[in-house]
């Protein structure tokens, strides 16, 4: 059977398509399980980004760039930092020190929970964006 150029890695492409959702799901698990067990924003961010790296390796950088554009990544990077800082500022507005999560809810324990949740989300978003843009800049010829 003659294969066209774009079909050459059919098996890899289909397997990748199957794997990517699970990688993303696992990343989300690591992200949101971070406050109970091992995990957290850094690890989750890297795992989340690895799905995009895999996509880029198999389907080519062009198509990954269409999925998530470099300018979008820049927005995400900044957004993550803003989420982190925003948590700190909210805790200051509610009467505590910077990043004092006790003040985020009525019960300090819940406050700590929400605080770490928001902060790790910020970390996760930024790490994902940074990892993907690192991949872009090393993989592209420019």
């Amino acid at each position, binding site marked *: 059977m003659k294969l066209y150029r774009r079909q050459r890695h059919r098996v890899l492409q289909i397997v990748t398509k199957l794997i990517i959702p699970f990688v993303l799901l696992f990343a989300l698990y690591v992200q949101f399980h971070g406050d109970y067990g091992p995990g957290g924003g850094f690890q989750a961010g890297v795992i989340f980004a690895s799905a995009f790296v895999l996509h880029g390796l198999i389907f080519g950088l062009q198509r990954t760039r269409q999925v998530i554009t470099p300018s979008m990544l820049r927005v995400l*990077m900044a957004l993550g930092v*803003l989420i982190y*800082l925003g948590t700190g*500022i909210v805790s200051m507005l509610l009467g505590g*020190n910077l*990043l004092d999560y*006790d003040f985020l809810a009525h019960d300090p324990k819940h406050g700590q929970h929400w605080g770490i949740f928001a902060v790790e989300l910020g970390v996760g978003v930024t790490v994902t964006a940074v990892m993907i843009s690192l991949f872009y800049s090393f993989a592209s010829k420019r």
Partner: protein
Amino acid sequence: MIADQLPALQIVIPMLAAPLCVLVKRSNACWAIALVANVLVVINAFALLHQVRTDGVIRYALGGWAAPTGIEYYVDTMNAIMLLLVSFISCVTLVFAYTSVKKTVVTGKHYLFYAAWMLCLTGLLGISITGDAFNVFVFLEISSLATYMLLAFGSDRRALTASFRYLIMGSVGASFILIGIGFLYAATGALNMVDLAQRIPDAESQRAVLVAFSFLTIGLMIKAAVFPLHGWLANAYQHAPIAVTAFLAGTATKVSLYVLLRFFFSIFGPNYSFGAMLLNVVLLPAAIVGFLLLSLVAIFQTDLRRMLAYSSVAQIGYIVAAFCLATQSGLTAGIVHIINHGIIKTALFMSVGCIIYRVGHAHIGSLDNLMKKMPLTVTAFIISGLGLIGVPLTVGFISKFSLIGASLERGWWMVGALVLVSSLFAIVYVGRVVEIMVFRSSRTDTPEPTGMREAPMSMLVPMYVLIGISLWFGISGSTTLSVASEAAAALLGGYQ
């Protein structure tokens, strides 16, 4: 309520400005955001200095976790001075940057430039404010990474190699500092500075403390560009965008010197650093050779920026020599010179920035007769150049007078004499440039370059603000001297 949050706001405001710049992306809007943040930070630093001087030391527990467990911000007079100096110089140079950056940096990248600037400011302020040894390293990395980026924005291609060289040297310095902090942690089990200062006397006999001390000394010497380890500085200052050079010359090395002070005096204590460790056998000769040799080297430079860069290393030599005296008056002299030199050198680099903006280069030999074309810029250069030499009624006089006084008081008259000798060199290197700019008439065979006018107001005003302040500090020296001697007393007294 807001009065309690000042230490946090000092860091949060510039840090918030950086991602906002990235999101907004429009050049002018980014500049406006950065400037607003910076003005707020200056006001904040002023309020902090006032608060510290009236109510004493401020300790701010981040996240509500009290000191030995959590990270704390520790503000005494010394920190507050550094915060005010860094944020003020950043503010003035940021105003200055508006016009000059438009010319040197690619338009599409302005937002990254201002974001990096804000991050660099965050890092420098963070190093100054924190009371946690590891946190110092974290902020050091933030400021260093942003600095590498800022340096690489230079229009000259050599900016990239200069930035890379600084990256290598800076990383070596930063990792030495990290190793030092690691050893300290191994020996004492503490990272909080106050805690460390209490525990080090018991752990002093351990070799780990000695190793930590050595690593920290070398790492900070690289970061502060103290004489034998200053290799990165000249190239970096020469090729960076001139606004960045002005900003860094007044802040980056000064902040490293502050960390040096903090570690030697507050944490290890002067008896350990300058008594048992015999640091003045190592550091003092380096400082003296530094200010003599590099003042001499500055005489032979052909590029104005490079000349000023070498002169910077020489001035750092004065500051370190003043620290080595390890007395109240010596430290006061050192701290005053940190402030004064920060102001003068920034003003000098700004005037060079004006020259580059109009002339297009800073080659000393071809700046002849510049006085006729750009009188205000050249006047600014001359006034701050006189400050660099240490002529009476300028800030340089105050710092050199107190330095020489302090060295005589300690009985090291030789140091005082050598400071005078290197001031003679300073007369030569400043005088040579002034002679060319003012007295040498243009060569008739070269065509008159077009568009030679005075630099734009947006560059002149911030420069003259700095010069006004330097003259004020020079005429009424007691303002800075009293604050500096308070800071010196606090450093020598150790943590309460």
